[in-house]
């Protein structure tokens, strides 16, 4: 299955057959406190710096999250999106818990965006699916619902199925739903990664949709986070992960390597290209 995202002009095709598409996670104030201070002054220089370094490191799509306490994200998210699109062509992934901020950004942006995220809660489906339809955006469907987060892969996959079904009934193409199986910290729960992997396998087998996840979560509270994230992403790709949200400056090497191992990179063109381009 394919999901097409569009930047200011060029297309990025996310394909379940690969190669893996990287959604850069770094424009997010939870991870970078410097973003808060610059965004408070509506200064987008640091946002653009993060955009550029992630694209150089291999990001195909950029997640844009400008949430922090007291923010007026209904005006800030569109402004950030405009600033990024003035300089870069990559598709954007609009990351906000506020549907009005997402709609405000969709209204002013070019191309075809990805909404991060819709979940199985009634309110989320009711609010966001019509917005996605209206602005022709793809959505990330988070495998949680009104009952919260379950640790049973079958139930998580069923929530994915419900989101896909509801999206299709709103007139959104099934391929425009990218499923997030949820990745939880393995340091707190030894089975956490296995639950995610099994959910990925079920979603891939039952629905065939593209799959994303915030893969860096799993290593919370542990040392050697880069090694752990890389191992988990590699195995997840084999199971059907096609577009992880991660830090390309840390993970692109492992992802290019996995594509090569899985026979999705003829003559190792992308793998070699990545390492030739690194300083």
């Amino acid at each position: 299955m394919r999901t097409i995202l569009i930047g200011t002009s060029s297309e990025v095709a996310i394909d379940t057959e690969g190669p893996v598409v990287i959604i850069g996670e770094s424009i997010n104030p939870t991870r970078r406190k410097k973003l808060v201070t610059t965004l408070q002054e509506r200064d987008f220089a640091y946002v653009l710096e993060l955009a550029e370094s992630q694209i150089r490191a291999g990001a195909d799509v950029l997640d844009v999250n400008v949430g922090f306490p007291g923010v007026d994200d209904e005006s800030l998210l569109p402004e950030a999106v405009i600033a990024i699109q003035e300089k870069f062509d990559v598709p954007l992934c609009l990351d906000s818990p506020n549907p009005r901020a997402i709609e405000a950004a969709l209204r002013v942006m070019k191309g075809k965006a990805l909404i991060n995220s819709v979940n199985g809660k009634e309110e989320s489906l009711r609010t966001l699916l019509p917005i996605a339809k209206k602005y022709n955006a793809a959505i990330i469907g988070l495998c949680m619902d009104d009952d919260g987060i379950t640790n049973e892969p079958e139930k998580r996959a069923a929530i994915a199925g419900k989101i896909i079904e509801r999206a299709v009934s709103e007139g959104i193409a099934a391929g425009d739903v990218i499923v997030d199986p949820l990745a939880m910290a393995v340091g707190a729960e030894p089975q956490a990664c296995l639950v995610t992997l099994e959910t990925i396998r079920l979603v891939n087998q039952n629905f065939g949709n593209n799959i994303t996840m915030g893969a860096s979560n799993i290593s919370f509270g542990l040392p050697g986070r880069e090694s752990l994230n890389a191992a988990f992403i590699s195995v997840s790709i084999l199971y059907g992960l096609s577009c992880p949200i991660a830090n390309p400056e840390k993970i692109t090497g492992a992802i290019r390597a996995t594509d090569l191992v899985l026979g999705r990179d003829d003559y190792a063109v992308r793998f070699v290209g990545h390492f030739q381009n690194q300083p």
Partner: protein
Amino acid sequence: MDDILNRLARCVEYGKTDKAASYPPDMKGQDGADELAKQALEQGIKPDEILEKSLVLAMAAVGDRFTRKEIYVPQMLMAARAMNAAMKHLKPYFQSGETKRKGKFIVGTVAGDLHDIGKNLVAMMVEGGGWEVIDLGTDVSTEKFLKAIDENPGAVVGLSALLTTTMENMKKTVAAIREKHGAMQILVGGAPVTMDYCKKIGADFYSPDPQGAVNYLRQFGA
């Protein structure tokens, strides 16, 4: 007496839950926290002494090592499991009122936020510091916090938020608690929270690590 309390503390610190536990490997086959706590009581050692001279010391050592990044989340959770195995033998004495704890600590992750690891670590460290912990879970509404505070007069409250987007709810809950319970001690924590933010929203204390909260609480309670 000191010997058994030292051995119990060592089991808690290194996560040796009971005799059958295979971790840590170098303590294989030895009595764990479960057996030693039982034996200590049978020897006539008072529950509050077991708490103070063994569990509290062990958990403080765990907290300090976590702060120094010598151990990580899984080791903390192993220690917590061992502590619970020992604590289960002390609980009847707490419930009968024969042994008093230092006070009550109400803790929860604020509304809209489902992250629980940091909150759980704080809850277990505070319990290991000799407090009774009332854990309200995740996605806790302001009303739920207020209800728990009404039901537990004199408690201290701790709020966790892991997202920049849910910190706003932390602010709202703190404001609502202040309005009804002016002098109440309110602790806040979580990855995006800072001391500046803590002051700005009118909370009393912020710590970047669980042990900081335990140390701060020493000045309160019995």
